[in-house]
């Protein structure tokens, strides 16, 4: 049985991720306060609350995953126009464009959409790997998921779990890096020793997705 996520499952999964992220807002604020301006929790709160509004009207997108994700991204960016909001919004919008017209996505489609999102994010943000940003969680996550694609008996949960674990490892790695871009770069050497909040947010998102997907695989 090939890995697959349906439109309805995607709506459900995103809802689970949104709830988990909103619940993590204080942790993200604390991390952002150490390196930046301490608004990441608020960004995530507003952005994912906005996404939940989009999900509530999921019927309007003709079961088109692309349209759903594009709208979710736009909504996120509008609701929380910070760096993270602009980037995550772009990621969702561009990732959605890669799924345009699909009512479901298999493992390859998921990874491709994530890769498209990553490319867009790098194009928009001009950051490189190792600059201590969300890229340093998202990039290894996609690599790990891509590797999983050839595994036997792959489940959606296993695919997402591989991404989540790699993202978390990547986020932890950012502690050793010095911020090279964005607000945190103004900390210079003092940025070393702290986890990048955006990287941590990516890891939390993937972890929530992996946890939520268990309900589908169990069914």
């Amino acid at each position, binding site marked *: 049985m090939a890995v697959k996520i349906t439109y309805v499952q995607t709506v459900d999964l995103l809802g689970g991720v949104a709830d988990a992220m909103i619940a993590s807002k204080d942790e993200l604020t604390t991390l952002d*306060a150490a390196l*930046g*301006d*301490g*608004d990441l929790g*608020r960004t995530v709160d507003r952005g994912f609350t906005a996404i939940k509004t989009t999900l509530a009207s999921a019927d309007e997108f003709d079961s088109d995953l692309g349209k759903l994700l594009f709208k979710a991204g736009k909504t996120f*960016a*509008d609701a*929380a*126009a*910070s*760096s993270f*909001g*602009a*980037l995550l919004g*772009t990621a969702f919008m561009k990732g959605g464009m890669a799924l345009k017209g699909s009512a479901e996505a298999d493992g390859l489609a998921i990874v491709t959409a994530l890769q498209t999102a990553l490319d867009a994010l790098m194009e*928009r*943000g001009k950051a490189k790997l190792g600059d201590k940003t969300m890229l340093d969680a998202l990039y290894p996550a996609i690599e790990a998921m891509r590797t999983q694609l050839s595994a036997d008996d792959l489940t959606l949960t296993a695919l997402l779990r591989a991404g989540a674990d790699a993202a978390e490892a990547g986020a932890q790695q950012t502690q050793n890096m010095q911020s090279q*871009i*964005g*607000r945190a*770069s*103004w*900390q*210079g050497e*003092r940025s070393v020793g702290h986890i990048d909040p955006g990287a941590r947010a990516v890891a939390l998102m993937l972890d929530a997705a992996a946890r939520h997907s268990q309900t589908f695989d169990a069914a």
Partner: protein
Amino acid sequence: MKKILNNPENYVPELLEGLLAAHPDRLKSAAGDVHCIVRADSPIEGKVGIVTGGGSGHLPVFLGYVGRGLLDGCAVGDVFASPTIDQMYNVTKAVHGGAGVLHLFGNYGGDVMNFAAAADQANMEDDIQVETVLVAEDVASAPPDKAANRRGVAGMIYAFKIAGARAEEKASLAEVKAAAEHALANTRSMGVALTPCIVPQVGKPTFTLGEGEMEIGMGIHGEPGTARTPLQTADDIVDQLIEKLMGDMDLSNSEITIMINSLGATPLEELYIMYRHALEVFKSSNTTVYRPYIGRFATSMEMTGASITVMKLDAELKRLLDQPANSPFFEHTQYA
């Protein structure tokens, strides 16, 4: 740090409604969104439109410089937060008088990325030529070899003034952009914070400073500075700020303009005490001051602290600096 407000979530729309109602002769909103503030006479045929944008909580920055001889429009975000792409796009479109638009704003990640998207959209959908100049003059935020990473603070006002004056002369987009870049190449800032401020929707201070502490080099959203020290005297603070500015740009034997800017709560009285000593310091390097700006030009609500900005002058900058300008927050009559 108590505030006069209603529901914190309505802080920005309410203040913008009040502002538009107060200055209908000079400002209006675009696209039916109070977050999109443009000159009442926009668009001006044949004039380059200059657009800025950024978070609220810094009045007169940013929207306070929308006016004659200054900016054409401003996209206004929530407190300390970027405006949206749509807002930036709508302002860009509303001020476009056929001669292109300059996006001129501070180097903050959200703003940079959103303005880039808005510029793309204006170009794609409306064929508007957009150029971008980032303000990045806070010497405390990055060393000279990473100067492009620096954040933008009060120095943006000199860029607004110079580019605005040039645009008023119906210069081309390339010329207006060059004027902004010329101003910024000669502009440096650095500040000191004594107490924080409170973002209304957050309700608690953005950072803490001990009773007898200050932080040199702190940013206008509380971004950390270069050193946290016991509270120093005005003269010592000025010494350090000017030393750092001079270390980044040689001001000796030059004519400069200076801006001594309160971050909000620090009263004008103290700015003049700082200015007095700045003149003493400049004497030793044979630096002369033309047209000082002393007041609240770029604030962080009720933050206590001040910043010093210098712009090294040449004939062209001086000529443009002297042009009249007029906004509800910045009146600039011909000098002398």
